[in-house]
């Protein structure tokens, strides 16, 4: 497999959009790990990132805005042998579908949630996203957004995610490494990818992230939850650590379903024993 095996239609993203880099990094990671388009499932949200559905060769479920995560949970329960990915934006995953993210993390559902975080709603032409910094002016927040930004990394860590990472669309090499580690991890994984929106966000640009992000050094221990939370909280000071912030091994949701011990649910046979009639007599 090489990355072209995963390439479907030519992307329609804006020239210079961070999605281009993310798209290539995803395909590279898939190819390097020798996955085939038919051997995994990708659930896409709705937004500019969601439009990636037509640019990737894979088993794809193109969901509703905000509902990719609950779809992915169902997909994984149905056939837990296949890797399951979610590709969604910040508005989709932290706004409309925020509740699902928390509960998917709690269950350690083995899905890789890759969030394209550009702090704006690109596809609806630039309204503030839940990750926008306080005071960010947009069409929907002309006087500056009153709310403080959500902290996706801290939210995921405290909700039970077992793999939490941050990448930057302008650093493909580290992005590929992070994605490969996420694919190798068993359990709920959130990969927040900082991604400049060249059309609508004139503040959080490539230059902004180059200046404010840094790679975690090799001595950093992602298994220490307290340290991970400290790293996650740095974004409140507009500092963005890149790399695997938190990683711990724990049984996944499907690991704990004894019904799946014999294999995938899609291939299983229910036991239809007349003994269940007894409770109605």
């Amino acid at each position: 497999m090489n990355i072209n095996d995963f390439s479907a239609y030519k992307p329609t993203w804006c020239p210079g959009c961070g999605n281009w880099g993310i798209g290539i990094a995803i395909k590279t990671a898939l190819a390097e790990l020798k996955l085939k388009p038919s051997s995994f499932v990708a659930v896409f949200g709705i937004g500019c990132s969601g439009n990636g559905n037509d640019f990737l060769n894979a088993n794809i479920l193109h969901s509703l805005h905000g509902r990719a995560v609950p779809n992915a949970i169902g997909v994984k329960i149905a056939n837990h042998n296949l890797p399951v990915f979610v590709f969604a934006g910040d508005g989709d995953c932290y706004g409309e579908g925020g509740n699902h993210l928390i509960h998917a993390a709690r269950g350690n559902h083995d899905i890789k949630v890759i969030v394209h975080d550009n702090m704006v709603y690109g596809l609806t032409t630039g309204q503030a996203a839940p990750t926008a910094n306080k005071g960010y002016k947009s069409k929907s927040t002309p006087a500056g957004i009153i709310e403080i930004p959500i902290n996706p990394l801290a939210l995921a860590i405290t909700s039970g995610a077992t793999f939490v990472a941050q990448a930057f669309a302008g650093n493909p090499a580290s992005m590929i490494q992070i994605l490969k580690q996420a694919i190798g991890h068993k359990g709920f994984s959130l990969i927040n990818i900082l991604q400049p929106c060249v059309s609508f966000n004139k503040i959080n640009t490539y230059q902004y992230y180059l200046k404010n992000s840094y790679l975690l050094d090799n001595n950093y221990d992602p298994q220490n939850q307290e340290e991970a939370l400290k790293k996650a909280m740095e974004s409140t000071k507009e500092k963005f650590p890149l790399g695997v912030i938190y990683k711990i091994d724990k049984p996944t949701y499907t690991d704990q379903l004894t019904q799946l011990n014999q294999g995938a649910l899609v291939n299983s046979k229910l036991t239809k024993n007349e003994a269940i009639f007894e409770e109605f007599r």
Partner: protein
Amino acid sequence: MNFLWKIGGEAGFGIVTTGSLFSKIAAKSGYYIFDFIQYPSLIRGGHNSFEALVSDEEVSNIKETIDFLVCLNKETLDLHKKRLTSSTYVIYDKNEFQVEGDYIKIMVPFSEILKRLNGQSIMKNTIALGASLAILGGELEILNKMLEKQFSDKPKETIQYNQKFAETGFNYIKTNYKDKIKQYLVRKEAQDKLVLTANDAFSLASIYADCKFYSAYPMTPASSVLSILASWQEKTGIVVRHAEDEIAAVNNVIGASFMGVRSSTGTSGGGFALMVESISYAGVSEIPLVIFLSQRPGPATGMPTWTEQGDLLFTVNAGHGEFPKIVLAPGDQEEMTELTIKAYNLADIYQTPIIVMSDMFLSESHKSIELEKIKKILIDNKIQRGKTIDNFSEEKYLRYKLTDDGISPRLIPGKSDIYYQANSYEHLEDGHSTEDNGMRKKQVDKRNKKIITYLNNEFKGPNIYGDLENADVVLVGWGSTKGPMIEAMKQIVSKKKIAVIHFSHVYPLNKEKVITNFKEGKRYILVENNSQGQFGKLLLQETGVEIKEKLLKYDGRMFYTEEIINYLL
């Protein structure tokens, strides 16, 4: 022979459990039952009651006149005075309150027995069951066996201790009210029966239909499906997820169903409202979806523990945009078993949302049905997966291929080297998003064709009860009013030429198969448990048949047989 037995008492003291036990005892004694529970939306402090109609013949209704009323507190008597007659037996404890009025008074010293046997107040129920069984001419042994079953995981002493209360109540009647004993529950040979609510029936049928995944959020009166199926995970292999909300539940199901696993979710009106966007999503992406919708009175939180058929038009219209959807409304527990199995088949055949409607009256009422009948429905059922396939070896696989019947082969992802996308956007035949005007129209037409295919193949016209040809008066209803309508018909058929038309396949409607049942010169009366005659509107819209006369009830209670009869006479 038929009689109505009712028990009432303070909420939180096991009235519902006791009632269900009574229904099972009556069924085991060889009789048919239909029961109904009434309880407020709280756990302690209100009044709970349970009533069962017991008969020699199959029943699926409740009558208004109470023949035996067991009052565990004074409130039970006060709440039911207008349903009592001079031949009603009132069973009570005179040490707790006095009963005025012209009834047959049966005094049982509940509190004294409790004190003597050192029992907790919940055991009043067991004394009352023993006493009831005695006054009805039933056998104590059946109750004792039920108690053994109920406490089968407890030590022998616990069982014997509980049986002591039953026996004391039973013997008290035998000793003190010998002359008042009726011979109603005398044990007789009869076929084995199951005592099922519609929720039990949906759960059982789901297992036999191969539903391997159920995801839901608790909401009365649908919640028991979640707890029943959850309790069967180990026994059957089904996976049950208690989701964070109804939107998650329906989307879990869509995800699993996309992957080829038969799945469903269940809820009531409020939760269903949250699922509506996803119903539209399943419609366009052509993913099989089964939703169990048990109605309760709305709007909003409404009256959570009562009954209404108020969500029909909402259900029929649920989901933005235009797409095929099939709505089934079984009339009783047996039909629920049959149509649940059919719903899963239809979902796979038509690759679209199927909604099975119930309401609190069906969902929480037990009906006795012969075991053999249920077994026949469950075991003889054929799983039909339509055009679902594991592999595809012809030309290029097209998920949304344009076909004459509107249905395209649906490949289960992950089973072959073929990959494709299912899309919530309008799409090309291969699944990729499109905004092309030509393909848009073709895909809309393709999806609409499924409605025609369904109406020609699986749609079933209304069931007719009685002699429709010669009837002057015809009751028309859908869903849970079936039992009350048929029973009313039976009771007045000697006085009136009457028939019943009952719809279980409520949407879409095949005009030709429906209008033949509506003729000039008859008096058609729409019987619905709502205030706007919603099925009447739907019938007019879909077939042009207009029913002007309406008997509507929307106080949160189901129709008593007498209410329909009194309206007609």
